[in-house]
């Protein structure tokens, strides 16, 4: 593909400013997403994946701020855009859906109006036309009887329906990038599968790239072509999603893969319980020296405790940040 990638994050650092001290909550994060690509960001709670997403759309607020690095969307650096230019990107070219479809919709406004508002806001349509487009948008996310549903208030819809409405709102203006922050965590498993399928199909049809953020490695690997694993504010491994299960290199990723329950694996491997990763994630103010995973790592040696590992290119494709990668 020619031209700049759709999204390019280069050496991003996000500072947490507390009184006069600055702590890097996210550091050295780099990745790129091409047009129409699906990219996953995986990590446990507090590893910095959600604030990375907020940084991408220019919505970091105090005490968080971008300390260093660049975020380029379509070749333009997001931090350098004016507030109005950023606003014109948000919802129009970069859209986002959230974990909680219960709270992400305005309770006092009919859902159709909330979809229509996007057309009015970003495409300058009049309300008549926008309302007609809202019905179409609702039909496209497979909500039955959309012409009646547009008049419903969010509390009249189920969780799955609300997330469909959120997707309709997010995709209303045909964005180039959809950021999905834990889009199905609040939903039950059968609905989860439907929503993921819907999101993937719609984005594939429209050529919308997806940045999916989740703690669920299995889910992300299922949706995305490439996956980056974050630990304690850093990307520790980035791989094609097919490779990550078979040949993951970083001890943390291997730990994640091993801790996934697999149907029938217990009998096959003669295991009686799931493997876990020992220890807990370090506090943001208390990251260890050297490799941040070293206190929990079985392979840790002296160098891991003193020296921060550099990013290494893997011959099989992908990146890893570990002194002893497999």
């Amino acid at each position, binding site marked *: 593909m020619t031209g700049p990638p759709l999204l390019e994050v280069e050496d991003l650092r996000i500072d947490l400013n507390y009184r006069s001290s600055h702590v890097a909550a996210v550091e050295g994060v780099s990745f790129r997403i091409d047009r129409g690509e699906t990219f996953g960001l995986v990590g446990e709670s507090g590893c910095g994946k959600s604030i990375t997403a907020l940084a991408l*759309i220019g*919505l970091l607020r105090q005490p968080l701020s971008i300390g260093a690095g660049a975020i380029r969307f379509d070749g333009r650096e997001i931090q350098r855009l004016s507030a109005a230019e950023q*606003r*014109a*990107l*948000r*919802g*129009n070219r970069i*859209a*986002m859906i*959230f974990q*909680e479809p*219960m*709270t*992400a*919709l*305005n*309770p*006092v*406004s009919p859902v159709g109006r909330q979809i229509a*508002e*996007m057309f009015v*806001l*970003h495409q300058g349509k009049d309300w008549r036309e926008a309302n007609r487009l809202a019905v179409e948008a609702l039909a496209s996310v497979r909500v039955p009887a959309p012409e009646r549903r547009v008049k419903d*208030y969010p*509390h*009249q819809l189920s969780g799955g329906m609300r997330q469909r409405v*959120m997707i309709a*709102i*997010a995709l209303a203006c045909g964005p180039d990038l959809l950021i999905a922050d834990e889009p199905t965590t609040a939903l039950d498993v059968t609905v989860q599968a439907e929503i993921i399928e819907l999101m993937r199909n719609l984005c594939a049809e429209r050529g919308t790239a997806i940045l999916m953020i989740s703690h669920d490695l299995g889910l992300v690997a299922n949706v995305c072509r490439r996956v980056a694993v974050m630990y304690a504010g850093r990307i520790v491994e980035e791989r094609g999603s097919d490779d990550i299960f078979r040949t993951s290199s970083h001890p943390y990723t291997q730990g994640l893969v091993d801790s996934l329950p697999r149907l029938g694996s217990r009998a096959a491997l003669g295991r009686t319980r799931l493997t876990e990763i020992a220890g807990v994630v370090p506090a943001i103010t208390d990251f260890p020296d050297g490799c941040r995973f070293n206190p929990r790592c079985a392979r840790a040696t002296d160098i891991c405790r003193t020296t921060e590992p550099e990013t290494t290119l893997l011959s099989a494709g992908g990146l890893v940040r570990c002194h002893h990668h497999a």
Partner: protein
Amino acid sequence: MRLGANLIIGGALFALAVIVGLLAPWLAHTDPVMDANLLNAEEPPSWIWWFGTDAQGRDIYSRVVHGARISLTVGIVSQLVNSVIGVTLGLTAGYWGGWWDDFVNGLTNLMLAIPSLIFALAIMAVLGPGLTSLLIALGLTNWSFTCRIARASTLSLKSQGYVQAAKVLGYGDLRIMITQLLPNMVGPIIVIGTLGMGGAILAEAALSFLGLGVRPPYPSWGSMLSEARDQITTAPWLSIFPGLAIFLTVLGLNLLGDGLRDILDPQSRSRRT
């Protein structure tokens, strides 16, 4: 849909006051100002004089009916002014924060520290008595509660997912305030507004009672009470009927406020259907 007793009773009382005010010229038996006749002075309530007559022989019933116009005008207009000021200041202060928030907070505290009646008295003293100065005085002095409620609602709503979502979807500040924040705080604002309307009617009565409101001979409920205070033992109907009118209107507004809050909350709406 069951609307609740509060809404029905409160709405009925307030509607009655509004209808009486609107139809005053047709409902009144006599002209409230001109038809004085000393031969009929201080007649007790009877079939001819429903509410009795005052010291000048004017029909109290007709004066109460006409007084509704003034009292309601004062209540509604001054509370509208209060709501607009309070919501604008509270919403922007809560949303933007920073020095503007500090400034609005300081102003609100200042307003709350000065008894509003005293403040209104001061404004009236400068502007002179009369309906217009009454509206200005009451409209500028009672917005602090509305402001506080608007600000507090904004602060709690600001962190709601849908306000964050609106930001992410590219809504501007003004659009967020109008489409996301304002509709979600309408309930408490209406409740405080109707209560405030009752308060304004009472304040009008108090100012008129003190001789700074509507000037005699024009009838407002407060000025009627003021004129009646000397005869309260000899001719109690002079104060009972305007007092009752104030009481019922203010009670109606308070009940209406509560009842409206119940139906304006979309969650409680679904519980009932």
